């Protein structure tokens, strides 16, 4: 029996064919190393840091814990697909303006998690923001500026001027 898998992943609405992959490869690995989508970052590969967060069938999950071949036939959305034209989203813009990015390694995962949070809960309480981002570790910023960025997006979206 061969260990080489052939399957199709639907990422950001587009089909991508994966060939000659080892069966145990994670979605994170396949996105980065086979499909040239390095937005999701790999740090711990054990679900602890959230830098690899993607949306799978509408849920924010750690792509390092998704067996890539098992994601065939499911909808995958990555940080690259947040704005189809490649421009910055309001969340990304707010991260820049509020200084919520230092080394930037955690940023793509946080941006995906923040988009997901605000989609489900447009005006979260402070504790809800903390809870929602508790699976995303940032070693640099100390989180204050990240929370400020979330608050800024909430304020702007509420005022309707986005």
């Amino acid at each position, binding site marked *: *029996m*061969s*260990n080489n*898998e052939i*399957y199709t992943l639907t990422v950001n609405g587009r089909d991508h064919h994966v060939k000659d992959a080892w*069966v*145990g490869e*994670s979605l994170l690995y396949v996105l980065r190393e086979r499909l040239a989508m390095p937005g999701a970052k790999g740090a711990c*590969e*054990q*679900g*602890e840091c*959230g830098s690899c*967060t993607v949306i*799978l069938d509408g*849920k*924010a*999950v*750690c792509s*390092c*814990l*998704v*067996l890539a*071949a*098992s994601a*065939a*036939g*499911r909808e995958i959305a990555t940080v690259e697909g947040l704005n189809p034209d490649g421009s910055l989203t309001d969340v990304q813009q707010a991260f820049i303006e509020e200084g919520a990015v230092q080394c930037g390694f955690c940023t793509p995962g946080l941006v995906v*998690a923040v988009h997901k949070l605000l989609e489900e809960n447009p005006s979260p309480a402070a504790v809800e923001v903390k*809870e*929602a981002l*508790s*699976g*995303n570790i940032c070693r640099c910023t100390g989180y204050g500026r990240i929370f400020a960025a979330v608050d800024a997006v909430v304020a702007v979206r509420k005022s309707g001027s986005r």
Partner: protein
Amino acid sequence: MAVMTPTRLDDALEMAAGNPDAHLLSGGTDFMVEVNFNHRKPVDVISLARVDELRQWSEDRGAGTIFVGAGVVYAEMEKGPLSALLPALAEAARTVGSPQIRAAGTLGGNLGTCSPAGDGLPVLSALDAQVHLASTGGTRTVPFSAFMTGPKKNDRRPGEIITGVTIPTGDDFQGYSKVGVRNAMVISIASACLSVRDGRVRVALGSVGPVIIRATAAEEWVSSVPVVDASVALEFGERVATESRPIDDHRSTAAYRRHAVSVISRRLLERSNDR
């Protein structure tokens, strides 16, 4: 074929029968850590993530039970209608990992791994859950207490898939409590689930023994005490702790675990009394 992605339970059972060595995969939050760290080299994998039948839960009012499918994720247990029906399961689910882990991790995976630190397991033990297994040969049902046979060991046979659990409803109180080094993303150092039904107290302990432990002597004792006051609660905690069998390991010491389990059991009993 190496990774199979059935969408029907019958197909999954056929695949498991034809391939008894294949690894079953649900949310991947235990399985993929082992693969990423080369502790497991999967050859054949049957992914259950798209089997809708496993992702359902339902209440049987007549029988007074709830069925929770093996593929139900923690995010679904922690809020909404299921959390109202099984508050202890909701409290346990809320403590698991992070939102990302709770969006993917399932009760079936918790049972499949059967770690003494699995947060769903003390709940299944205290609530006298029945575990359902299926294979092409038929189905069987095992009480949780008989299902978990050791640390990371269970009674599942090759070719069998855990389909879900049945839990009796109608408790007067149920609660879950967990001690860890912080609030999020933490494996328990000690945990307890306590339920009260018709004056009968049941308490199950996690992370303080090779399997989930029911403190049956303490249960008997406290159920026979007419009035639960502060001193009874204190003694209950102490009695529970004597039935735990903790060890020293990289996460904590046996002495601290025994202390922790006594405190959380006392507090759970007090909570049940305050309701």
